[in-house]
């Protein structure tokens, strides 16, 4: 398995180079270094000299990907792409175009993101699986029918509606928790209750319905019939046989998301005033801060690759028949 993991990590390097190249191309198709300078210098009284100076100071006075004026390898290395990308591979994110240390900002902002994402993820998983098992248990009864109808209804509602509706009902009408904000430590609890609750409710429809389908597929299989024939209780059948065998498709969607929990959610964090990473990339795109954009895209790619590797590893844990070679 170790050889497999090492191989997967090595595969990741060309993927990350590719992701960097695409990010770079997409960003500079839309924004030129002059545009970036203008944006950072403000929109009033920006002179050409100031633009030239800003580009020099931020390393954007080099050619984008090929420097014909330089000898040898410098033709490639003395470029904006190389100078900005190579350090990422040792997780040196450098300094944002506004002068802030990106690594420091990420380390500060990932915890609030995690504070929402982790409880939402764990509690949500528990709720979704429980609800799906409930519907599977009462399959073809009114509970199942109304459960599916409820799921479809919940799926049909926009996530933004849950946020605005939740804030209106829970915070504005009932005055139970603050509408938005954040605090450190245990004081964060009152700010997290509502976004976590909304996050869970918002995901009930889609996830429970998906898990229900998985469980129903498993319930119809021979080993379940055999288990029942042995006289096992229905709960035992559900939890020890159906749930366990339904874990592979569930894990496929779940484990890959675990590392990405750090990245946060744009809309939730924006509406609830959570100082997480969710809006970091979007703000950077808005302010044309390429240093942050490339760092966040790189980080997202790395976390996604880690998620995929973890998913593969998790398969071996729930299904002894799978071997990673």
């Amino acid at each position, binding site marked *: 398995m170790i050889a497999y993991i090492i191989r997967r990590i090595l595969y990741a390097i060309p993927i990350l180079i590719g992701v960097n190249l695409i990010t770079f191309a997409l960003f500079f198709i839309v924004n030129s270094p002059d545009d970036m300078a203008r944006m*950072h210098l403000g929109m009033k009284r920006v002179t050409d000299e100031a633009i030239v100076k800003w580009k020099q100071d931020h390393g954007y006075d080099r050619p984008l990907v090929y420097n014909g004026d330089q000898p040898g390898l410098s033709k490639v290395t003395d470029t904006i792409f190389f100078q900005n990308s190579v350090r990422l591979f040792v997780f040196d994110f450098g300094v944002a175009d506004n002068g802030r240390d990106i690594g420091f900002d990420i380390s500060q902002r990932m915890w609030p993101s995690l504070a929402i994402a982790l409880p939402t993820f764990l509690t949500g998983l528990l709720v979704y699986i429980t609800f799906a098992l409930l519907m599977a248990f009462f399959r073809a009864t009114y*509970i199942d029918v109304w459960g599916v109808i409820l799921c479809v209804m919940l799926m049909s509602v926009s996530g933004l509606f849950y946020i605005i509706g939740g804030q209106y009902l829970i915070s504005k009408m009932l*005055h139970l928790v603050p509408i938005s904000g954040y605090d450190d430590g245990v*004081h964060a609890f009152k700010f997290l*209750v509502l976004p976590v609750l909304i996050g869970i409710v918002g995901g009930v429809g889609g996830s429970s319905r998906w898990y229900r389908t998985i469980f129903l597929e498993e319930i119809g299989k021979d080993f379940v019939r055999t288990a029942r024939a042995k006289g096992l209780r229905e709960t035992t059948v559900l939890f020890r046989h159906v749930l366990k065998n339904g874990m592979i498709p569930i894990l496929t969607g779940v484990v890959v998301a675990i590392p990405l929990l750090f990245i946060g959610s744009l809309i939730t964090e924006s509406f609830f005033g959570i100082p997480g990473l969710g809006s970091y990339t979007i703000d950077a795109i808005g302010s044309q801060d390429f240093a942050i954009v490339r760092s966040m895209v790189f980080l997202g790619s790395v976390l996604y690759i880690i998620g995929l590797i973890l998913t593969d590893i998790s398969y071996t844990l729930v299904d002894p028949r799978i071997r990673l070679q």
Partner: protein
Amino acid sequence: MIFGIILEISASGLQFPENNGNLVNNLAVGEFRDLVKNTATILLSLFYASVLGLSGCERQAWNNPYPTTEAEANILYSAFDERPNHLDPAQSYASNEIEFTGQIYEPPLEYHYLQRPYTLIPLAAETLPVPVYLDEQGHTLPTNTPIDKIAFSVYTVKIQKGIQYQPHPAFARDEAGNYLYHHLSAEDIENAFELRDFPRTGTRELEAGDYVYQIKRLAHPKLHSPILGLMSEYIVGLNDYAKRLAQEYEKLAAVQGEPAYLNLHDYDFEGVRIVDRYTYQIKVHGKYPQLLYWLAMPFFAPIPPEADKFYTQPGMKEKNLTLDWYPVGTGPFMLTVNNPNREMILERNPNFHGQTYPTTGEPEDAAAGLLVDAGKMMPFIDKAVYKLDKESIPLWNKFLQGYYDTSGISSDSFDQAVKIGADGEAALTDEMRGQNIRLVTSVATSTSYLGFNMLDEVVGGDSERARKLRQAIAIAIDYEEFITIFTNGRGISAQGPIPPGIYGYREGEPGINPYVYQWRGGKPQRRGIEEAKRLLSEAGYQGGIDPETGQPLILYFDSPMAGPGAKPYLDWMLKQFKKLEVQLVFRNTDYNRFQEKMLKGSAQIYRWGWNADYPDPENFLFLLYGPNGKAKFKGENASNYASPEFDALFEKMKNMDNGPERQAMIDRMLAIVRRDAPWVWGLHPKAFGLLHSWYTNAKPNQIANNTLKYKRVDPELRAELRAQWNRPVLWPIVLLLVIFVISIVPAVQAFRRRERMAAR
């Protein structure tokens, strides 16, 4: 903390009293009573514990986002939706940055808080500096010397004695008098993440040299001051000084590495000099009275060299420990928390020299309660907390709950807050009045206009044809309708580039644009569309038909607008041109491409705006000055308008003192541009603000940026009203639990039944 809860059934449902007591459950809902009781108790207890118990206060409303220790503290609460990029006064220019730097730094001058028109008064300076005019040889000239004879103006600024800086580690010294934190090693900096990680602080007296140091910083090669270009035209030798500093910095950096510390006191130039400990001089080319306005902006605030030295140490920038992040000032407040991902906190500067609230204002100020604190020492609040709230809905709701002291009004909440009467007057809705909220309005010192590119072959140029086409369009675009539809009445139609409140603006009939309006019934009335059509015909476009093609005239509107708000606006604009049977084509681009078009002068019609830097007509009329053309000279004249007569008048007017002669000149300039119509003059926005009853001394001031010191809050009244407005309502939660339990019972029964069944 005891988490006792009393659940009572009242006529209106379950209430949750604020006082604590033992758990007594009177709930009776049939056979689920025990279950409901236990569930509700556990949940609500946990809830109560988390919301209140952990914060240790019983009076606190559950939805209060602030710590309970702040419940009755003398704190002002506000919000920001975008983090400031720069807090270094040499670089900071945006309004959301000056909102903070204005409270921290003290330039020599400031604007009178209450008086209108806006009046400069001394802040750190002892008196308003009076320029001394010199000829080429340096001889002093009389004050009435004609402008063209004045070679230089020298402003001598004398600052007050005894002003101290805020406590800051840059000033901290050991017993021997050596600076504690000016020679930090990498290890010292390794564990420092915020300014408070340097435990010792110090202060020192403000000196004239600090102002000189800051003016020199405008030319620092590692700073990007937005006014360097402009100031280089005026401050003698600044341009060459910037080049010299760049060379010196390179030499130093080659030895010291980056960042190199450039002690600017080692490098002097002619334009600025220290006279004595409390006096300095600025020398500018010619006559430039607008310099006084710049002296009221943080660009000209003092920076102690110690702070520069402290922050330039290797490793500091990597920790975000920079002057751009942690300002050092002498003002009434100091930035103690700078986490713009969450909050920024200004606290009272313990070393503030003190200043008294103004004793005079406009005639109506006394009746409005704005002189209650006259003569009292400022600031009135201990702390100002700014929370990051990006979305308008939570921000608005928190204002209504009393968690922000003041609020603007977004389009979403406008109808909830304001009703416009038949006479067009804005008044608060009953809901707002019920909360004793007050409305304050003021016309912004800014202008929003629709511009024609004067380099364009169709709409531009000085021909009579093009002029009449522009005049026709100016009449057709009904900005009164625009203001009603798109700004909820928050604006006034512009009659020219100069907004109200700025010298040169004329009220009433003499102030109207006669090419677009007539004076009827005591107010300006837009000329009829027939007149616009007539002008269009005279321009050669009879019935909107382009004689060259025989087809309707096609014009192009270049716009970076996007999103849901763009379409209604563009549709409306289409309708305005349709009145003339002219076809308008939108060329939507992203903002970068739009900027590019403007710089190249390839746009045809565009929308733009300008906020005043200072209350002088020069700051608006320069937007139409030929040598400021955007395409040719990269200036701020986005329409590339050039009129020799206007330009000649502008050159004379810009450096004149206010008076009848200047007013006459401005009138003539306005007449020229109204006739030439390089802009459809658009509107001057009107700012609407809502204030809670506990928030006082708030008079809108569109120019001054250091107004926090004047504001006062009544924390006790605020705490009382917050508690009153935010009583928790629990019965729906309990009801929901009951419904949940009721619905689950048949399922449990079915489960049991199924468990007893034989396998199928």
